[in-house]
């Protein structure tokens, strides 16, 4: 698209642009703006200063956003223009879709979308759009945060949402965003109501099955331990499972550093098993997870301190 200039456009002839004032000869972080951006910003200032809420104001915000989506008042101004001119909110979403795809890392877009969808009062079409976004980046933080908002706003902590999340985990068992979303669906939507024993068992089984697929994947281990902690079960509940992947009797046959980590915690709590806990931590520090050696050695030090204190 060729650059758009307002000074050549008769529809804007009544507007006196407000040029940017840097306040002196020594601006900081000054940017070599394109002529197009400089001019558009001058017209934006003029319209904002006049509190003009009009169709042309809407198109000007669109132009600015295409060049600088992080402008913090242009979005608020746009929302106000939409409100004052009775703009079609469905059309707004239609425009936001490609804009979000162009600016994957921008979060103002999502905040704005949230405001619009909230007003529309329906999540219709949102799931499809989220899928399109996740095709670009399956771990896009803003998209997952937005999905959580949708789930909460429309009370859809349901079986369908859980199935969708399972699909995302199946596609990539290492997608931590998807695991986190599962935790939100299972634990987050309950308004203080406890998760039933059956669901806790189901979640433990689910995480364990995922670990058996890829034992060195942190995400389901974190999830598993998070669920166990939430249910206030002791870590020792998971001892037999951990032993499937790491047995201190067979130190050359370890399938997962996370199993050793868990075993170290379990043995630290068991009477007379401090040496086993230290052995697990030693294996981690020296062989199975040496990049975190400092951390494992620190944990070993804590065991010694506990001994002294006892």
């Amino acid at each position, binding site marked *: 698209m060729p650059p758009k200039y307002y000074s050549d456009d008769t529809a804007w002839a009544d507007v006196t642009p407000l040029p940017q004032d840097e306040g002196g000869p020594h601006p900081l972080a000054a940017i070599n*703006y394109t002529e197009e951006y400089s001019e558009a910003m001058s017209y934006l200032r003029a319209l904002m200063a006049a509190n003009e809420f009009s169709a042309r104001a809407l198109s000007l915000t669109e132009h600015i956003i295409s060049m600088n989506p992080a402008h913090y008042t242009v979005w608020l101004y746009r929302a106000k223009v939409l409100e004052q001119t009775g703009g079609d909110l469905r059309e707004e979403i239609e425009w936001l879709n490609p804009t979000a795809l162009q600016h994957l890392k921008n979060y103002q877009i999502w905040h704005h979308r949230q405001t619009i969808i909230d007003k529309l009062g329906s999540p219709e079409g949102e799931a499809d759009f989220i899928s399109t976004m996740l095709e670009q980046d399956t771990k896009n933080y803003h998209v*997952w945060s937005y999905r959580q908002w949708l789930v909460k706003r429309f009370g859809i902590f349901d079986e369908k949402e859980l199935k969708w999340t399972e699909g995302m985990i199946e596609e990539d068992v290492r997608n931590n965003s998807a695991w986190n979303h599962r935790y939100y669906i299972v634990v987050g939507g309950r308004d203080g109501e406890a998760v039933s024993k059956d669901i806790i068992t189901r979640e433990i089984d689910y995480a364990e099955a995922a670990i058996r697929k890829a034992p060195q994947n942190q995400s389901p281990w974190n999830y598993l331990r998070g669920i166990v902690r939430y249910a206030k079960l002791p870590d020792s509940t998971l001892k037999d499972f951990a032993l499937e992947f790491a047995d201190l009797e067979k130190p050359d046959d370890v*399938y997962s550093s996370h199993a050793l980590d868990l075993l170290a915690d379990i043995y630290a709590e068991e009477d007379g098993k401090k040496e086993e806990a230290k052995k697990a931590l030693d294996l981690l520090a020296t062989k199975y997870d040496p990049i975190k050696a400092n951390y494992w050695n620190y944990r070993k030090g804590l065991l010694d301190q506990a001994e002294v204190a006892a």
Partner: protein
Amino acid sequence: MAPAGGSVAGDQSTLNYARHINYWRRNLKTFLPHHYTGNDSNRMTFALFILSALDLLGDLQAALSAEERQGYIEWVYHCQLPEGCFRATPGTDFGSSRNAENKIWDPAHVPGTYFALLILALLGDDLKRVKRREILLWLTKVQRPDGSFGETVGENGQVEGGNDPRFGYMGTGIRWILRGHAEGPVDGVPDIDVDSFVECVRRSETYDGGITEAAFHEAHAGFAACAINALYFVNRLPLPSTPSQTSDSRPRGVSNLPLTLHWLASRQTLTLEHEDAMDTLGYETDTSAACHDSHSFVKLKSYPSTAGVQSFQDLPKSQSELQWVGLNGRCNKIADTCYAFWVSTPLKLLGHLDLVDIKPIRRWLLDRTQHMVGGFGKLPGDPPDIYHSYLGLMVLAIFGEAGLKDVDPALCMSNRVKEHLESLPWRREIVGN
């Protein structure tokens, strides 16, 4: 992992001071290229990064004439609003057309105000022209009832901006700059609600020990650092757990320190480039000896094929892999220069920087993401940008890199600047000596 350029140990890993100084002086003295237009609204932030980088490198005095120094100070004051606080960019300034009806489009901005105050301190200003009382009053209005902070205050007192712990970090940072750790009203200006802010951080702790932007969102190192920095600014980090120490009644965060330390230490990763993130489930080479955090790490069959053995022999052994260790921002993500800062800072503030091995992290930054023209890129081979270049330099300073100034990790500035702030007479009156 890509083969090293004939390097074994880290002796040749050096910070190229001259190139970094060139890079930052260029950012200071010439216009930033137009692809920074998307950061037009972050100009105050970038201004601080540029000046502070030169300060860390010990080049600030040499880089600035007295006239330039004063000119920059005036530029910052030019961004002060008539009602107090700062805009983040001259781009929203309506000049003489600004009035009560249109000023909502040119609002006081939390990051703009935080970085404006830091720039003034960095340049040796006494902040006497800053409308400090107005800022402190406004801070109470940009805090939401749930304890979190927004970015601006909009129409009808509505707090605008997303759920973003960066605003809590900078909001509490502004408070620290203007009134230290003093709690309660100062000079008749009410305090922010510190307790509800701490509760807000605690609600944002995740099941794996990380911290996120709001309850149940995914743990993220940037947000964890902002939260922990903010707790430091309001003096609500966990008390050291000595047997004689009894806890006080004030809410503190984080609520499960051992788990948070586990999560922070787990940000160390060997996934430094996109190809490192390949899942090797089912590959014969996928064993603990070639341990790679992104690998599936299955047991090698008892009788591997010759091909399997050979390809395994070509893989780096864990000892040599440890030459470089990166830090990521989330579980199962690639390392990124800025996360070296976002992970190391909270560890340092919690008194546990020794939980990570800074030597291979330093080598990763210097050998892989440091750029030959100066500055740092996000990933190996990426061109430098202001954001990654500043945080890369800052984290090396936190590690104690020789030749860089001592720094305060929470303020993200040199201690010289912090000491200047602490020496200001008006501040000493509020904070005490």
